[in-house]
């Protein structure tokens, strides 16, 4: 099997497994968790394009998630616009904001970039809280309609599951394609050595803004889906802590790996559910995971899995 | 006093020093010459502990110092005047000198001697005394070089490593610096290892010399002999085309 065929094969299996889960598992609690994993995967993939591929950190990505969610919430509840149209509008406006803010922000490097994106995220968090007339302020915005297509209303677990996961799988596929193209190489080149990338004719600044914009676009779609499946949004979901949680997902899963983002999203979504027994332990464990993985496993958990898979493959071949 | 045995040093993956061996006796001026990129600075940095060698041994007064941290090597009595001076520009001239004596900062008893050393340095370089309250960043190239030498001397080293003290200086200023180095060796009995691009000036002043080419020592001998040696010129300016054809 060539490398390319093997990749297609792995992806098909991955997609197939995810799409058959609801047939095997009817429990609504678990499906709900999986819906969250899907939304988080989308966000982690979006952030990974920026952080893992282009090497540019954002500590404000929850803002784009929030922009998507609130745009969907506000435009459907107050203006009764068609939800599908609104998703596109929301994604486009998040992208537009990212594009405009991206030019000055992505001139900054390293720690300064981190702080600027953080500031940007907090400003939006404050806006979500304070524009009470639009967002409902801290008490949130409820009554967001479910999506529907034809006669199907996406108001139950299985419908939501498919809604979220079909889009998530599509986002993953497109991101994998992108990462293996000339654009993906250019992104990784900027990550490894910006000066060499520029000498090779890559306009690093514009490229970073472009990927920031795309990342915001995907994050906003995730936000819209979140709003329509939960039918309720409040600012706490879009604060600094969530931005950090997104970074944690990407790092724990593996920088520069799309499957890693899925893994990271899955672990960080499931973990709090498990840790419910030991209430409040989750935050300290996030911190520890960030530190330990960063120190001892810079490739993230997915690199461990890959190593394992290689060893198994070698064993099988050896026999 | 100093023995370097088969030292091998790497910069990342670059093999910068290959089996270099060298020795010095107390009171000597030894110069290390060679073209750019030959590994002269690397050798000094290996001695100072900044780029520790991966193989070989360095003995200073019969004590191995091969893998000591830079600040410990200074304590052993080896000070380096680094390439490009590397003066602390946001600090005053006086503060730079004071930091030169950092290793004595805990010993009250040394205070007197440190002050004496400072006076000696101000005598050596009167211009530094004039400017001692000025920020080092405002000094000229030659003054910075003097300050850099002065700072290294504050540690009262037994072995002074000088890395291209004439670099980027006008010839007349360079000569002045060389004069000081010569006086220093004569008067204070400091042993000096001098890395220079200006091979003639260095060889004139030194007792012995080593020629380094792409990480290897290719020649050693009395300075006066090296001065006459055609090989030395070749090491700087390359082989004739003819020689290359013959190779």
């Amino acid at each position, binding site marked *: 099997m060539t490398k390319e065929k093997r990749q297609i094969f792995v992806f098909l299996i991955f997609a197939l497994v995810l799409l058959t889960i609801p047939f095997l598992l009817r429990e609504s609690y678990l499906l709900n968790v999986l819906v969250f994993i899907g939304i988080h995967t989308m966000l982690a993939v979006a952030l990974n394009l920026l952080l893992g591929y282009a*090497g540019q*950190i954002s500590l404000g990505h929850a803002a784009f998630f929030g922009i998507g969610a609130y745009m969907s919430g506000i435009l459907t509840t107050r203006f009764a616009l068609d939800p599908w149209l609104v998703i596109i509008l929301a994604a486009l406006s998040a992208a537009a904001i990212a594009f405009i803010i991206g030019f*000055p*922000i992505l001139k*900054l*490097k*390293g*720690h*300064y970039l*981190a*702080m*600027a994106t953080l*500031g*940007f995220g*907090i*400003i939006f968090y*404050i*806006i979500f*809280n*304070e524009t009470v007339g639009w967002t409902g302020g801290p008490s949130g915005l409820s009554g967001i309609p479910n999506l529907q297509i034809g006669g199907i209303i996406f108001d139950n677990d299985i419908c939501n599951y498919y809604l979220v996961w079909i889009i998530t799988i599509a986002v993953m596929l497109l991101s994998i394609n992108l990462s293996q193209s000339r654009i993906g190489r250019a992104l990784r080149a900027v990550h490894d050595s910006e000066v060499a990338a520029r000498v090779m004719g890559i306009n690093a600044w514009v490229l970073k803004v472009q990927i920031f914009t795309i990342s915001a676009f995907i994050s906003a779609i995730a936000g819209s889906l979140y709003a329509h499946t939960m039918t309720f949004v409040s600012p706490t979901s879009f604060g*600094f802590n969530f931005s*950090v949680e997104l*970074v944690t997902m990407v790092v724990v899963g593996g920088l520069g790996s799309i499957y890693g983002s899925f893994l990271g999203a899955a672990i960080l979504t499931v973990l709090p559910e498990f840790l419910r027994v030991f209430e*409040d*332990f989750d*935050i*300290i*464990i*996030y*911190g*520890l*995971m*960030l*530190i330990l993985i*960063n*120190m001892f496993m810079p490739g993230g958990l997915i690199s461990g899995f890959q190593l394992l898979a290689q060893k198994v493959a070698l064993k099988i071949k050896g026999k | 006093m100093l023995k370097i045995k088969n030292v091998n040093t790497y910069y990342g993956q670059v093999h910068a020093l290959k089996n270099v061996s060298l020795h010095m006796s107390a009171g000597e001026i030894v110069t290390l010459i060679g073209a750019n990129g030959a590994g002269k600075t690397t050798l000094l940095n290996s001695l*100072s*502990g*900044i780029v520790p060698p991966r193989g070989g041994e360095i003995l200073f007064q019969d004590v191995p110092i091969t893998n000591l*941290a*830079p*600040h410990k090597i*200074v*304590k052993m009595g080896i*000070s380096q005047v*680094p390439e490009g001076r*590397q*003066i*602390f520009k*946001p*600090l005053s001239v006086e*503060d730079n000198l*004071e*930091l*030169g004596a*950092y*290793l004595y*900062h805990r010993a009250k008893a040394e205070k007197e001697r440190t002050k004496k050393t400072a006076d000696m340095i101000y005598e050596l370089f009167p211009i530094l005394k004039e400017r001692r309250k000025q920020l080092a960043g405002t000094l000229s190239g030659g003054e910075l070089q003097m300050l850099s030498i002065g700072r*290294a001397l504050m*540690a009262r080293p037994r072995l002074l490593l000088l890395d291209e003290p004439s670099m980027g200086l006008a010839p007349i200023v360079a000569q002045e610096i060389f004069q000081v180095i010569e006086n220093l060796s004569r008067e204070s009995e400091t042993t000096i290892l001098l890395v220079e691009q200006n091979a003639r000036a260095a060889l004139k002043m030194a007792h012995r010399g080593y020629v380094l080419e792409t990480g290897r020592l290719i020649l050693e001998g009395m300075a006066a002999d090296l001065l006459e040696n055609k090989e030395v010129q070749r090491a700087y300016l390359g082989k004739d085309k003819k020689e290359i054809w013959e190779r």
Partner: protein
Amino acid sequence: MDNLYQYLLTGLSNGAIYALIGFGFAIIHNATGIINFAQGEFVMLGGMLALFFLVFCGFPLAPSIILSILIATVVGIIFERLAIRPLKNAKPIRLIIITIGASIFIRGAAMLIWGKDTHALPAFSGNDPLYIAGATIMPQHLWIFAVTILVIFSSRLFFNHTIIGKAMRACAYNAQAASLVGIDVRIMVMLSFSISAAIGSLAGIIIAPLTMTSYDVGIMLGLKGFCAVIIGGMSSGLGTVMGGLLLGLLEALGAGFISAGYKDAIAFIILLLILFFRPEGLFGKKETERV
């Protein structure tokens, strides 16, 4: 007019705190090039520890403060030793993530130990307002101003007139040259973390009686401190103080005359504007290209 006076006072005292926290950022940044995202947690630790010793253990004020600062300093040293030193030459992105990880960890530990409640630390010298020239002022404000001035004064003394302070500046400017004059650079880095933790925790202690304290106050206070140091410029100690005071005043006036809800946004809007248009800060010097 009364209001304006009140805003100015609040602004200045908050600003003094921001300046102190910003100081902590600058000290570590100058010594290592790292922006320590866990800086705010030292501030939180200061407040919570003081609360713990003073209220729960019933210790007198002075020993409580000293103990709190000591413990926070030790945490700073451990953090440097375990998380920063092993990653000496890592790319900024890893260092950012590691300090964020540490910040979450410290915050989580504080929550486990002291719970999620918000507490008030008793004011150092009671709550009776003083009347000075017809204006009222809380004694705690005086404490804040006094401590800030003291810290600024003594750190100037330390960095400009002691050999260790000068050695730290030398390290910040050129670590290799510093090691060549016999300075142990690793000790200096560790020292920068401990001083920064000490100043941060002190800031947390003196502000706690006015603003209450809980396990999560560190995030916002830390970020404000960062804003202060960016406004003033990383390279300038006095700039950081000015930056902090300016930020505190603008915030207080904005909160008073525009809207209390947007108070925090003001800091971050200023932060972005400065980063975009004058990244060296209002009072800092532009870094020239290196040869």
